[in-house]
């Protein structure tokens, strides 16, 4: 119904302003009396939907003086070593094709691998572990593969580790220093600034692979130990700062993780300072380690409840057992008529209780076989 209005109004807007004047006069006349003005406006009646653009008013692109054509022309690429000629569309201005190299040629970057002469080799680079041929091969591969040592190691005819190759490559550093008229000239060069330390690199990569290949279980344990150590050091700071006991802290007061490590002695246990192959710990030694570390941390508390101590020891003993096993131990205890938590937890009773639990664990393990 109002399509005519929608279409009609823009149409009349285009030509002259005279008609614009008459249009507003038309609008009040058109307004129907039946429905309100707002509703009518809602249906798109009176006001135009969009500010219409007068095409003729738009700025025209200034007519350029140049004549543009597009031509199918051959080109060469300076980045290529052969003289391959390919064709592509070229924007020709006034009959003059563009000059200059192929625009993508500048992206062909390569590494400056040091090249030594035979004399220099004799003077500086002879090494009992490496023949001249091998060294030459290495440098050639370095240049070919832009110092990508993983690839170079793969392509190298005799098997050498990546670290060994890198180490050998770094002898070129020696050449640079030798060639340079004075040390200061060359000290800015990246090769000279950061020397390569083979043993450190080997160690670093080994440690990294160990961290990456940790099982989830080990990760959780490490996180727990670190959190525990942090809590202990934090509360130790807090207890040092406090003059008197304002907040009751019944547990986790005391030593740093270093003390625990001392008490543990030779047992392998992850500490925050040393990166040990914790992934290789055998389950049985870890139980002993857990119990020993629990005992140590208990001793570090100034005061604790016997029931708390028992809980900790039970947890330590069953740390390697899954939830199902723990449930089965509790079931066994109930079948034997023993309280899950002793009613009279004296030292003797707790000791017996712990031993019983351990024996049940042994029994369950045997039954699995």
């Amino acid at each position, binding site marked *: 119904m109002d399509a005519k209005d929608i279409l009609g109004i823009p149409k009349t807007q285009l030509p002259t302003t005279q008609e614009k004047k008459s249009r507003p006069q038309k609008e009040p006349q058109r307004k129907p009396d039946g429905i309100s003005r707002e509703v009518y406006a809602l249906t798109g009646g009176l006001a135009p939907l969009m500010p219409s653009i007068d095409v003729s008013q738009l700025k025209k692109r200034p007519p350029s003086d140049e004549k543009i054509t597009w031509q199918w022309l051959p080109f060469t690429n300076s980045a290529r070593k052969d003289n391959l000629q390919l064709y592509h569309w070229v924007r020709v201005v006034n009959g003059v094709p563009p000059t200059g190299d192929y625009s993508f040629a500048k992206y062909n970057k390569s590494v400056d691998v040091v090249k030594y002469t035979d004399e220099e080799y004799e003077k500086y680079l002879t090494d009992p572990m490496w023949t001249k041929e091998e060294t030459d091969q290495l440098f050639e591969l370095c240049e070919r593969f832009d110092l990508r040592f993983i690839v170079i190691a793969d392509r190298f005819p005799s098997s050498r580790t990546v670290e060994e190759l890198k180490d050998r490559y770094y002898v070129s550093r020696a050449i640079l220093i030798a060639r340079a008229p004075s040390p200061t000239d060359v000290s800015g060069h990246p090769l000279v600034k950061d020397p390569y330390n083979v043993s450190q690199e080997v160690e670093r990569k080994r440690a990294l692979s160990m961290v990456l290949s940790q099982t989830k279980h080990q990760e959780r344990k490490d996180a727990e130990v670190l959190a525990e150590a942090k809590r202990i050091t934090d509360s130790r700071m807090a*207890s040092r700062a406090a003059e*008197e*006991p304002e907040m*009751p*802290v*019944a547990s986790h*007061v005391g030593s740093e993780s270093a003390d625990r490590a001392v008490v543990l002695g030779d047992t392998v246990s992850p500490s925050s300072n040393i990166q040990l192959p914790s992934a290789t710990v055998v389950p049985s030694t870890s139980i002993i380690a857990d119990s020993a570390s629990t005992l140590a941390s*208990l*001793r570090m*508390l*100034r*005061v*604790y*409840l*016997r*029931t708390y*101590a028992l809980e900790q020891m039970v947890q330590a003993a069953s740390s390697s057992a899954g939830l199902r096993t723990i449930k089965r131990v509790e079931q*066994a*205890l109930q079948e*034997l*008529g*023993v*309280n899950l938590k*002793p*009613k*009279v*937890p*004296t*030292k*003797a*009773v707790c000791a*017996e*209780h712990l*031993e*019983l639990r351990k*024996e*049940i664990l*042994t*029994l369950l393990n*045997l*039954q699995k*076989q």
Partner: protein
Amino acid sequence: MAFVQNLNKKLKDVEISIPIVYGNVAFWLGKKASEYQSHKWTVYVRGATNEDLGVVIKRAVFQLHSSFNNPTRAVESPPFELSESGWGEFEIAITLYFHADVCDKPLNLYHHLKLYPEDESGSMSTKKPVVVESYDEIVFPEPSDSFLARVQNHPAVTLPRLPVGFTLPPPVPIEDTSKRKRGDTKDHPLAQWFMNFSEADELLQLAAARQQVQAHIAKLKRQISLIDGQQQQLRSTSDP
């Protein structure tokens, strides 16, 4: 087993433990009960054999439900107990502060106040209270010399056998108790309701259980070695 009696005056491998019992006794007020005061209860910490804990504990702080006036109640001398009246059951945190030569860190206990009998059908009586007690032991793993000297003969305290050659300084004479208010709970008005905790029963239970388990283990081990032996035999006969 060697210990070092160093200038720090702390002993290793000698631990002091204090057997305690903590819990509550609650009486239904019967006719006198109102909606908000249906029970009269007492929460306490006592020596397991009703000895005076004041030798070790300086004060006990009972943290009650926030609906009570001044919910933090400190008791400065033994017997360490607190009586109130109310209708609700809630967890009470008991913080024990020790004497300076004992330990400078407090210890927390938690007790769930029980007013109503377990057996819901059982009628409540004004004469017989509901009693819930828990046994535990406070352990001091590295007690100081002075602490040890002070308590070496006190009945509330359990000392292990002291290492050979170890001599304690002479015991400090215990104060004349008649001058101070009694701290032990032997003649406490509620003493008739206190429970008895004996480790003998539990020890027997545990010993019997361990025997059973050990027997099972031995049987299984025999079976396993039999099977292994048989496997060995089979393997050796099948080899050419």
